[in-house]
């Protein structure tokens, strides 16, 4: 009964066909099967946000999803967003502001911040704090992250359409 199930999906634009055990969650599938280790695992119960990825354009916790549930979906990870250049400005702002220390929360934090900036082009600091409030960072104290997201929003807003 718990035999492998076939799953076909797009990961960072690349078609993937795999046989996976039903119990394999999406985070482990990305990390162990596809070696996309930029998606981190911090709690495996959906609280820390380190495993945040994009599923059909929306952020989700990849530890709270089975790989088989991604059938037919498009999954994007930090590797994909980095290679496409979509968040190059946000990454630069994080670098300038030292909005990361150990870097373990950073992929999930960037995913979540980009999600906010897509929905709300010029969020205030409280809105940034609220949107990121499900992503745990033990190192920074959050302020530098909020600064980097705010700076990116302002730069993007000032950019000619």
């Amino acid at each position: 009964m718990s035999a492998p199930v076939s799953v076909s999906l797009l990961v960072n634009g690349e078609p993937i066909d795999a046989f996976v055990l039903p119990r394999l969650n999406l985070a482990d599938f990305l990390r162990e099967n596809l070696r996309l280790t930029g998606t981190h695992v911090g709690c495996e119960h959906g609280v820390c946000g380190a495993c945040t990825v994009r599923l059909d354009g929306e952020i989700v916790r990849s530890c709270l999803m089975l790989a088989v549930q991604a059938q037919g979906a498009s999954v994007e990870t930090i590797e994909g967003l980095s290679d496409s250049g979509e968040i190059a400005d946000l990454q630069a702002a994080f670098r300038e502001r030292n909005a990361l220390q150990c870097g373990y929360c950073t992929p999930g934090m960037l995913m979540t911040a980009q999600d906010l900036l897509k929905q709300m082009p010029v969020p205030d600091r409280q809105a940034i704090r609220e949107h990121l409030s499900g992503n745990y960072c033990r190192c920074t104290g959050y302020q530098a992250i909020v600064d980097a997201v705010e700076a990116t929003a302002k730069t993007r807003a000032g950019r000619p359409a």
Partner: protein
Amino acid sequence: MTVTRAPAETLSVLDRSNSYIGKTVPRPNLDRLLQGRGQYVSDLELPRMAHVVFLRSPYAHARIVAIDADAARRMSGVIAIVTGRELEAVITPWVGVLSHLKGLKSAPQHAIAVDRACWQGEAVAAIVATSRAAAEDAMEHVVVDYEELETVTDMRTALDPATPVIHSALGDNLAFERTLNAGDVDQALSDSEVVEADFVFGRHTGVTLEPRAVVADWNAAEARLTIYQGTQAPHMVQNIAALHLGLREAQVRVVCKDVGGSFGIKVHIYADEMATYALSKLLRRPIKFVADRVESFNTDIHARDHRCRGRIGVKPDGTITAFEIDDLTGIGPYSMYPRTSAIEANQVVNLVGGPYVTANYRARARVVFQNKNVMCQYRAVGHPIACSVTEGLVDLAAAKIGMDPVEIRRRNLIPDDAYPCASPSGMKFEQLSHHASLAKLLQMMDYDALRAEQAALRARNIHRGIGIASFIEVTNPSAAFYGVGGAKISSQDGVAVRLDAQGSVICQTSITEQGQGSESLTAQIVGSVLGVSMDRVRVTLGDTDNTPYGGGTWASRGAGIGGEAALQAAKALRQNILDVAAAILQSTPAGLDIVNNSIVNAVDGAPRIELNELARIVYFRPDTLPPGVQPELMATRHFVPRQYPFAFTNGVQASWLEVDTETGFVTLLKHWVVEDCGTIINPQLVDEQIRGGVVQGLGAALFEKCIYDERGQLTNANMADYLVPMSGEMPDIEIGHVVSPTQETELGAKGAGEAGTAGAAAAVANAVNDALRPFGATITEIPLTPQVILTALGRI
């Protein structure tokens, strides 16, 4: 920035035209982490690698009668199931004591429990399988017959005669006791107003986002063990693994690449990590252990579980006449190895009253065993306890005599011109800046305006509070911390610097990186001293095969000790380069300098030869050098502080918050810190260390607590129930600096990694009490939960 003392003459080596010192520059190699290309141990996979999970005792105290693993052994994917008794043949037990902590005792601890489990979460068997999931499946089928034993959980009764003794060979449950008596406390108190309070601190843990992780790879053909581990102290791990596995240190290599947070959690030797090394040796293949989050809560060291009775004497004019404390802490069933679990209480005794002139100080600290997870050193060891007790008492004293909290501090803080001096507990202070720091803080926060705003809001039934907390911090520890007690924990660090064949610099340092910016500060120092641009400096760290021997990164020592070693190594290499350049250019070393990757004339800065050209000649055409010139384009230097056991730093924090007196909920509005860590190498990195540290302290103040029941069960061992600080509740934190460089080093840098954590909770607690003053409520307990606040207000 306020500079209390002119930088020493010798600082000129850093004060060059192209210096990176004192400048904010982005850390090298951040893109790797930003693009998800970090190499954390949890990412690592090796050929033939197996995964271990540990079956952990569900009881806080139990005899292990029998372990039946037959059914589990037959399950798919299972490679081995190993008990403590079986692993004993591979790895020896240890006892976490240090000789300079007189009287400290502990019992032998095994990698996997033998016969008896002493806390809920202690490993009783290892299950090794082809995947973590398969190992967990098998674990459910290992049957352990336990005989539950009586538990010792409450530290307050641990020493009662009626309480069972956890380790009978030790005679009692007292691990360590220290008393101190300076001046004449009784006389001082008899002449003063006396205020007394019981301070209670929740048990916390570090909750590093990447859990503890290790891959141990015993290569039987090489007779060599490679340990990939997220650790702050690779050489310490090397020494201890070798010692207990019966190997020479040369047979153990420790590699530490990216680490997902440490904060003192990853500076210890954990039993399950030792078991993983031993399993690799036993099974002759790589074994990976990554704690899951529940295991992290149950086995990562806890800290801060203290109950401290404090007394303060004060005169009507605000003079503080004495401090007295009686501190009690419960550390679990074993003193941790090798740093021991007595250091935190010892630090509390050392630090209470430390910012103040008062000479009368009496202290007792007792450290007891109990059947809970082990406690040990975690960021700002002992400081939050000492600071909260001291600053809480000072505020209580001020309230007693009707004095403003700032005024009482002004009257009692050690004057900035009184240094060098010592505290009643014997701590030597080289140069602190309490008054300059306080003045700067008041200016930053506009104290008077804030007080006026507070009064106006109070009239509208809005209750806000201001809390101030001065602190001192132990940094740059010498051998006085561990080495003198017999621990093989290096207090010195080494840096090797070499010029490569294209004129770039390769730098190997024994300090480690967990995100603080060790790589950056090393590159900044080396680049500045050598006259080489930072993009040409590559820093290697975290590998015992490829770095000089040294302590690593803990106790706020990386910049001050490792940074000085880098400075001295770079100075030596610079001299060597100038010697060669002088030979090539038929000049003198003194007549030349290195600026922007080129040899230039010292007098007019005119370029003479680029470093890459010099390197080309040295490495590929040495035949063209004058006879007798043998270039040494590599230099190594080590450094350890000798003059002061610790380079004390100081600072002051303030919190501005609002209490909803109907619901007991606290909203943090703003936080300020002024800190003096001496020479600032990279202002942004220092500020971010402080901010991160403050938020850890704010977590302690409002949220974090390991909640045990009376049977020793940790009841909130998950991230939904153990509340860490998240972005939504944290305030913006403004930071200022006063600069008093230490004269013990040319660099002048002291540590900054723990200052934020040291004083944040004290500032918040004082602010909450300030807000509640109209209600006559005083709280000396953290975390300040709504339940605690509503109870104090008499609402429930």
